């Protein structure tokens, strides 16, 4: 068996890049897919409209509200499959309220105006513009937010972009290279540099394997390969979960599915 080793390349609240050596791209792709469609988050699902005299119709309003990312507390709410309930129960649902009226001036209703029953469930971005009210217009809504998964609707998907690709490998043949600098000029990510009479690659993980350096080199002194036996995974969070938590829960979801499968095989 091949040895597996992981290396964290870049991480912040929103993004994570990891190099997983020994796991082929085809296997790592299942983690990417789990992150997109299986990791549960919380989002507004139903909107009860008590009053809406704005120019935006109810469906459009509900659609916009559904897309607002909400902070998802860990292990607090259950998904549909985890428990039996007739749609809405305190174990899976949080109620949020939005009430706004324009008196003398125009009012822009923002996601920050939404109040919640649970202080842990709130819109992460408070400046998202929901609707604009002209003087005299009014909206009054109650929303129910519940746990869901990306395969039900994209609003529950915790990631914007999730990419898996092979590890880029740039080989430089120093005996052929005459330091003409053509490849340095042409590289769109500016990762090739000439330092101390030597051509070097500064940040290999930024390489998109576009091959422009290979095409530009008159001496054929540079070669770019993609090693699909090691995978490079990049994820960007919408905001409802931290990027690292998404990656961990994606693994958890795969393990959960594997356990279900093993049970089925054993006939339990």
């Amino acid at each position, binding site marked *: 068996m091949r040895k597996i080793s992981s290396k964290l390349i870049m991480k912040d609240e929103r993004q994570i890049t990891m190099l997983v050596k020994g796991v082929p791209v085809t296997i790592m792709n299942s983690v990417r897919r789990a992150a997109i469609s299986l990791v549960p988050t919380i989002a507004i699902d139903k909107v009860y409209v008590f009053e809406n005299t704005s*120019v*935006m119709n109810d469906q459009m309003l509900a659609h*916009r509200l559904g*897309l*607002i*990312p909400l902070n998802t507390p860990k292990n607090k709410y259950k998904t549909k499959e985890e428990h039996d309930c007739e749609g809405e129960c305190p174990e899976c649902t949080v109620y949020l309220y939005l009430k706004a009226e324009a008196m003398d001036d*125009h009012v*822009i209703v*923002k*996601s920050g105006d939404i109040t919640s029953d649970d202080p842990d469930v709130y819109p992460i*971005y*408070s*400046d*998202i*513009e929901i*609707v*604009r009210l*002209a*003087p*005299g*217009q009014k909206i009054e809504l109650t929303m129910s937010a519940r746990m869901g998964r990306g395969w039900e609707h*994209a609003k529950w*998907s915790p*990631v*914007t*972009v999730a990419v898996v690709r092979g590890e880029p490998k740039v080989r430089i043949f120093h005996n052929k290279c005459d330091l003409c600098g053509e490849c340095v000029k042409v590289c769109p990510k500016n990762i090739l540099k000439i330092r101390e009479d030597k051509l070097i690659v500064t940040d290999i993980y930024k390489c998109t394997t576009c091959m422009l350096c290979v095409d530009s080199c008159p001496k054929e002194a540079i070669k770019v390969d993609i090693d699909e036996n090691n995978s490079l995974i990049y994820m*960007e969070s*919408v*905001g409802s979960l931290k990027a690292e938590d998404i990656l961990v829960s994606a693994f958890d979801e795969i393990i959960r599915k594997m356990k279900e499968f093993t049970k089925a095989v054993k006939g339990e």
Partner: protein
Amino acid sequence: MEDQVPEEENRRLIGDLNMMIPVRCFTCGNVIGDKYSKFMEAVNKGIDPKEALDELGLNRYCCRRMILSHVNIIDQFILYEMVRLKDAQDI
């Protein structure tokens, strides 16, 4: 319509920076709903649109086109609504 909607009201509606933009980018799902007014503010200050977009963290061209190619229509709807409200008051 020009007689019915006060001129200053009209000007204010058109000159306003806050517009209704889709909440998410159509392609990648990144949140852009809170970024349009920030972008317009920066551009009105004289900052290069390219730099303003970079500052907002919109790196992909799918999110960039959402902001750059946005056409606001809610103001036009509101104008009709204003006329209707004004008519109702007159009656």
